[in-house]
């Protein structure tokens, strides 16, 4: 369609490049519904693995915010055969914790009628039961196996829409990965649950409570989004974390970690036939389960601008968000292009105006969809004012830019630049195994086909200056705006 533009760039970027790339990709789905993407890249004898579980904090039940994240931590705790000194005894001890913990919860559930003495007694019993179970634990054995076998980059992350597990091995350890990964999703053991709960609570302190930006984002989401689970950060609320129960995490796992809800990417020096054989052998053991439900709550329409102030002795920040549709909207590509025009690189309009020319901001950027994309979300702006320049001044300057993109169409050169940048960004993603494994998983799980990673470029090519102006006018409107900013604590406020 846009032959002239494509001609600016080499073959790899045209349709034929997708055909070229397609030769490297083997895709299959096991009878239980688990999907695999194998990407051959024989540059070095190493392989990267990526497990994309289609479950995230949006699926956290009420009162259990953060449970998806909690399970992610438990997925490193091992299985009956990994991490136990004596599984039968450990299993019984773990069950015993839950029995006393149930009694404790029952007593607590009496509310104001509960007996503090009894609670203290039961708490002591829980502590003892935990100590007994812990005595059977072979510490961190799962991690130990991975690390001592040369695994690198092992970690996991829980987002709003997905939970991802990933690391890389030397090529001769491929089967070990199949073993370990299938085991942990086949029969995870919720050992050391209550200690890990403290660790998760620490993580929240670090990422949210002790970070001025973390607090600001938390307030922004809770204000901008009224009903949809995007309003809570993936870490969850402190009091929910403090009261997690192992059986809650287990129920959650059973409901959401079904085979059909998992996509796996394997990229590197891998033989796809061998990989398929091992996938059948190891992951074929996972039973076919029902697909978990989608989120039911639909965010109601926002009726008017909102503002929220967060007290913080730190230097000021401001975040400005507008409602936008999900990544499945026909406007998604135009919103991507708009965001790139506003804040991509050193030619983005916001950077040029606020940071470079007016010098009123230390940093300023936009994000096309926040906090995630599967459901209607936010188009976000974030500004860090320069010393001596106020939030108000920056806010005003930002609105002027937004009005400008609504009023005047961007020129063709700007659109062309953005298209090329988006294409080049794709090429640069293709040079690492871990990047390939994660990107292909992501597109496959989110859009049903990994090819969207490439075909999306054609959608970008179709975006016109009119489209950019139209989406700016449609979505960047005062009525759906939420502004969150920091302010110094008031005089005499509690220290």
């Amino acid at each position: 369609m846009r032959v002239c533009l494509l001609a600016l760039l080499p073959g790899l970027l045209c349709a034929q490049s997708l055909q070229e790339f397609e030769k490297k990709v083997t895709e299959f789905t096991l009878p239980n519904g688990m999907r695999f993407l194998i990407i051959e890249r024989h540059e070095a004898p190493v392989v990267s693995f990526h497990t994309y579980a289609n479950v995230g904090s949006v699926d956290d039940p009420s009162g259990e915010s953060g449970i998806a994240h909690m399970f992610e931590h438990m997925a490193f705790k091992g299985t009956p055969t990994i991490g136990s000194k004596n599984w039968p005894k450990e299993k019984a001890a773990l069950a015993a914790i839950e029995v006393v913990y149930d009694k404790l919860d029952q007593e607590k559930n009496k509310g104001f009628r509960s007996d503090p003495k009894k609670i203290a007694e039961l708490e002591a019993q829980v502590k003892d039961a935990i100590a007994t179970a812990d005595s059977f634990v072979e510490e961190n054995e799962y991690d130990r196996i991975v690390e001592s076998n040369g695994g690198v980059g092992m970690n996991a992350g829980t987002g709003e829409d997905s939970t991802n597990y990933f690391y890389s091995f030397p090529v001769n350890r491929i089967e070990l990965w199949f073993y370990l990964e299938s085991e942990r999703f086949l029969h995870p053991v919720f050992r050391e649950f209550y200690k890990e709960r403290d660790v998760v609570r620490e993580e929240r302190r670090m990422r949210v409570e002790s970070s001025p930006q973390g607090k600001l984002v938390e307030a922004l989401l809770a204000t901008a989004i009224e009903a949809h689970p995007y309003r809570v950060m993936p870490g969850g609320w402190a009091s929910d974390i403090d009261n997690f129960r192992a059986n809650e995490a287990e129920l959650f796992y059973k409901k959401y970690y079904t085979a059909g809800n998992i996509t796996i990417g394997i990229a590197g020096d891998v033989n796809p036939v061998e990989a398929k054989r091992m996938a059948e052998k190891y992951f074929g053991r996972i039973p076919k389960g029902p697909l978990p439900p989608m989120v039911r709550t639909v965010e109601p329409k926002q009726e008017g601008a909102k503002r929220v102030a967060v007290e913080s002795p730190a230097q000021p920040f401001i975040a400005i968000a507008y409602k936008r549709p999900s990544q499945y909207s026909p406007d998604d590509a135009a919103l991507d292009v708009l965001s790139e025009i506003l804040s991509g690189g050193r030619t983005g309009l916001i950077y040029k105006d606020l940071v470079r020319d007016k010098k009123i901001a230390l940093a300023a950027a936009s994000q096309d969809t926040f906090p995630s994309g599967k459901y209607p979300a936010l188009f976000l702006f974030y500004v860090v004012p320069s010393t001596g320049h106020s939030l108000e001044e920056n806010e005003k300057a930002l609105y002027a830019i937004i009005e400008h993109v609504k009023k005047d169409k961007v020129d063709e050169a700007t659109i062309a630049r953005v298209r090329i940048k988006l294409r080049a960004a794709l090429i640069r993603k293709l040079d690492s195994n871990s990047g390939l494994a994660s990107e292909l998983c992501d597109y496959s799980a989110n859009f049903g086909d990994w090819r969207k990673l490439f075909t999306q470029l054609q959608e970008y090519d179709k975006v016109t200056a009119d489209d950019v102006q139209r989406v700016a006018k449609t979505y960047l409107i005062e009525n759906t705006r939420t502004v969150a900013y920091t302010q110094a604590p008031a005089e005499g406020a509690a220290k």
Partner: protein
Amino acid sequence: MKGLFLAVLLAHGVFAQVVPSYKDLKYPPLPQVKVPEPTSFTLSNGMRVFLLEDHELPLIRGLALIHTGNLFDPPDKKGLSEFTAEVLRSGGTKAKTGDQIDEELENMAASVEAGMDETSASMSFSALKENGDTVLRVFKDVMTSPEFRQDKLDLAITQTRSAIARRNDDANAIPERELMRIIYGPTTPYGWQVEYEDLNHIHRDDVVKFYQRYYFPKNIMLAVYGDFKIAEMKEKLEKTFADWTVQQPDVPKFPEVTAKPAPGIYLAEKPDVTQTFFAMGELGGTLRDKDYAALQVAANILGQGFTSRLLSQIRTKLGYAYDISASWSANWDHPGTFRIEGSTKSQSTTETLEAARVELDKMRSAEVTPRELDEAKQGVLNSFVFNFDSPAKTLNRVMRYEYYGYPKDFLFQYQKAIAAVTRADVLRVAKERFLPENLAIVAVGNPKEFGKPLSALGKVNVLDLTIPEPKSETGPAPKSDPAAAERGRGMLKRAQQAMGGADKLAGVKDMTESAEMTMSPAAGGMKRKQQSRWAAPSFFRQEQVLPFGTVTAYSDGKTGWLSFPTVRPMDPAVLKQAQGEIFRVPVTLILSDRDASRTVSAAGPKSVEISTADGQSVRVEFDDATGLPIRQFYKEAAMGEVKETFSDWREVDGIKLPFKILMEQNEQKVGEVAISEIKLNTGIKPEELSKKPEPAKK
């Protein structure tokens, strides 16, 4: 018991396939790694080049190392090297401005960047293959003919000023920074940090000189990799850089590390966090250290990865921390550090530090287990192949080895050394090099929330994180020159005369000024009405009508408050501004020769410098013809140098005062104050000024 186990399996519906334990898995040998061999040569101008073909993607990328570093910053111009690197790129070339280069590169989805580290500077580029030639030319132009335009240096300085103001906001970043200052010494290039004061001393000349001294062909190594043919690229580079032949004497050695152990417990208070962030450490070694491999293994067992002792004990067993680690971070050419770092909830601060100390002591008192040693070594050896999983890693390594004078096979020597480490080695190096008596411990948190007090660990030194204001705001005041002082007083006297006479001026006890302030479009374009009131000697109140409400500021010269949106104390930067306003109240400023707390000195034939011991200072310029002050210059930490130009002189009760003030900052107009009315001696009482506004109705 067996039955229970089966039940679990049944619950998952597992009948058919029984998989063996991972212990039964057999691993085939790893295929031979093909390590690509870069081609290296020297251009005729002396620049070292390393090339590696990589045809996987249509990209060409390059990285240059320049033999310099921020260790060469002059002590009174800390940060100079970083400004050089930043403005090298942003300040454009002779032919193009930095902004033009931004557009040109982004139109090709390419990048050219420059950076500065401790012992090296870098420049890099990345281009799609078909733009390779164009981007290489831009890269060369930036490297060889930078223009260092003033506006971009100003921008970089403004940005750094903001970054300094924010440096204590993120508690997470503080412990390591402070630990480095303590370990290496806060007045050494290894330990110091850039302050506001430095920014006042850095000028374009300095940047140009730094560039000229270090950026010359013989002092640069350039690695290029990607989709090209070696022979063609060789020719292209030779041609591209042929006309760049500048020479400079060899670059001196980096300064020696002169650190002495500075053990102790240091606490920085931060009331707005729920966690304590901490770092403890001492001076370490280099990669050349004969025990480097053993130290690496020891540090890994203590605190690297999920299976380390610190993580097992403090995260997994105690649940105190999400994050805790130990590292032996060796440098190429000067001693690095041994560090334990992490964070924990405020309540368990002291316990966590104690637990970390216990683990450290254990490393020093008994051999690690055979399994620990084996797993730590296997971890390094089995993941060794990841050193070769991309051409860029190989190329970067080859170049670094040559840059720092390491043998080509250093990595393989290291591999052998790791394989040879014994339990006895680990214990020996832990005893020799992990010295608890040398540990400096830095904790940043809210001590009110600590469970056990930190003093349980020993004497606590409180770290003052206050960001120092510039010492002198307008350069060295020529105080010691009595003749200059005399000339200065003379100019003031003439100005007093011109404004209506010294006695009349001395009779002014209060002043009320109504004005409209217009910010220039570049500074936000805001317009606001304001009323300022002053009462002798130093009570000041200003009300500004802003779109979102009226903001009241009040200061008695020592403290102050701001009213928006609720009344709260001024933060130090704002208080400093208010003190500046009080200091510069025109009727008292011009009488500074009568104020013993102020120093007056001629700063030029038509200008006088007025300053106080507590750091206020202003330079006033006088009109030759009338003797009236026409301009004044002062510096503010928050804004840089401010220039005010006075005009529209009118008489109020027999005293001449300017009704128009033009404000400029860093040579740019930022705003204008148009005064509509000035009233003198209306009998303002200090209590009226300090009255706090009623809180706005919710």
